């Protein structure tokens, strides 16, 4: 193992990891927003929107991110939608993640009983307040394991972003592998992903444990 090589190339990986984290952060955040909105639309069964949302969720969940990205990055510009790699990566991750997050939130929402809704109504809460103070907080706690699994899954999916010419961790690694030093490069690659994903996994595990203790289940 060539330590000098690892030390010399470390900064490159650091910069690449930053990019991965940035894109993942915005992609996952937007996924959560899209997912929550879709789940609420499905929860209230709003007539037309509910069908559109269901169709979107099925499309997002039953096709690979790479194919979605290829379509977004190489296909759509031909039809006049032009975006750069980073925007495309975030859009692709949001399209994919929105579908998964919607399912995660939907599970939580459907766990909130009709009686809780009525109790909220009976103290005069309006529809929005009911969601904000009664339904969503309870649904979030129930959904947390699914949200955690989806977040980790989306973090891992970011590894394909080099296909839209984003200089992320895989891109850098592939570049260096051409020069040899494969075991050092792979060590850096594995270490970088561990450094990025492991903390998130641990934070979610901690959150889940905490919520279970503060737990509901009356």
């Amino acid at each position: 193992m060539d330590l000098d090589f690892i030390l010399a190339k470390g900064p490159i990986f650091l910069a690449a990891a930053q990019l991965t984290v940035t894109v993942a952060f915005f992609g996952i955040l937007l996924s959560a927003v899209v997912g929550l909105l879709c789940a609420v639309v499905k929860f209230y069964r709003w007539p037309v929107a509910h069908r559109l949302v269901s169709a979107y969720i099925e499309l997002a969940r039953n096709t690979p991110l790479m194919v979605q990205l290829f379509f977004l990055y190489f296909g759509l510009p031909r039809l006049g939608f032009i975006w750069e790699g980073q925007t495309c990566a975030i859009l692709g991750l949001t399209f994919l993640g929105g579908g998964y997050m919607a399912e995660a939130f939907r599970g939580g929402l459907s766990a909130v009983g009709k009686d809780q809704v009525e109790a909220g109504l009976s103290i005069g809460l309006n529809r929005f307040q009911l969601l904000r103070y009664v339904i969503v907080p309870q649904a979030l706690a129930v959904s947390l394991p699914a949200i955690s699994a989806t977040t980790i899954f989306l973090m891992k999916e970011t590894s394909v972003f080099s296909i839209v010419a984003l200089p992320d961790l895989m891109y850098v690694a592939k570049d260096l592998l051409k020069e040899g030093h494969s075991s050092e490069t792979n060590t850096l690659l594995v270490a970088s992903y561990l450094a990025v994903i492991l903390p998130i996994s641990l934070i979610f595990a901690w959150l889940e444990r905490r919520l279970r203790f503060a737990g509901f289940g009356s």
Partner: protein
Amino acid sequence: MLSGQVVLKIKDLVKNYDQRAVLKGLTLTVSQGEVLVVIGPSGCGKSTLLRCLNGLEPVNGGQIIFEGQYLTDPQTNWSRIRQRVGMVFQNYELFPHLTALENILLGPIKVQNKSREEALAKAEYWLNRVDLWDRRHSFPRQLSGGQKQRVAIVRALAMDPEIMLFDEVTASLDPEMVREVLDVITNLAQEGLTMLIVTHEMAFARAVADRIIFLDDGGIVEDSTPDVFFQNPATERARRFLNIFHYDDIHKPNGSLNLAKNNL
């Protein structure tokens, strides 16, 4: 007390579930400060009646007039009405992610836009009255059934309702906890709060009620004072209903003793 001003008027109220009629043209008037206890066999529509009064069930016909306002008008702003009509449910339905105090403060602060201080003062007053001020930071799962139901009553009272609806509030409680909840309600009745109570606790009904409404098959069969109703019900149906709560002595045939002995 009975001569008070009319608070609630129900006229020919009709409610159907699918094709089945649950309330078949029910008419009832409630005056200020009256305590009405609604009793009747299960499925007679007593819970449905309360749920209609709080807008939890759409109504199929007739009128509900609360303080001169037609609640059967589809334009009714239910959020505003529900602040004035408190409701307590059989299964407490406290919000499990909020502490007892947060459960109580939610309505006054978010719906009525009261200041935190004002809402807190009121919550403190009521929680003290039901002996739960010490438990204000507990989550619902940390409270017993009786405690949960007392918090739920306070949650409704904290909105300053003009009328309270109690829907079988002791039906899910262990027997030893029924008393603490009924005492709270009795206490409120003595203060002159207008109340509609659905219950299966006959002794409590007799003690707390100004009027007993006996409901059967979607309509009012008897509307009288507790003394008259319990001692001398006017209808055969009421008599049969009251008989359910009596047990005759059981005369065991001699033969059955052998079996009991063998099992021991």
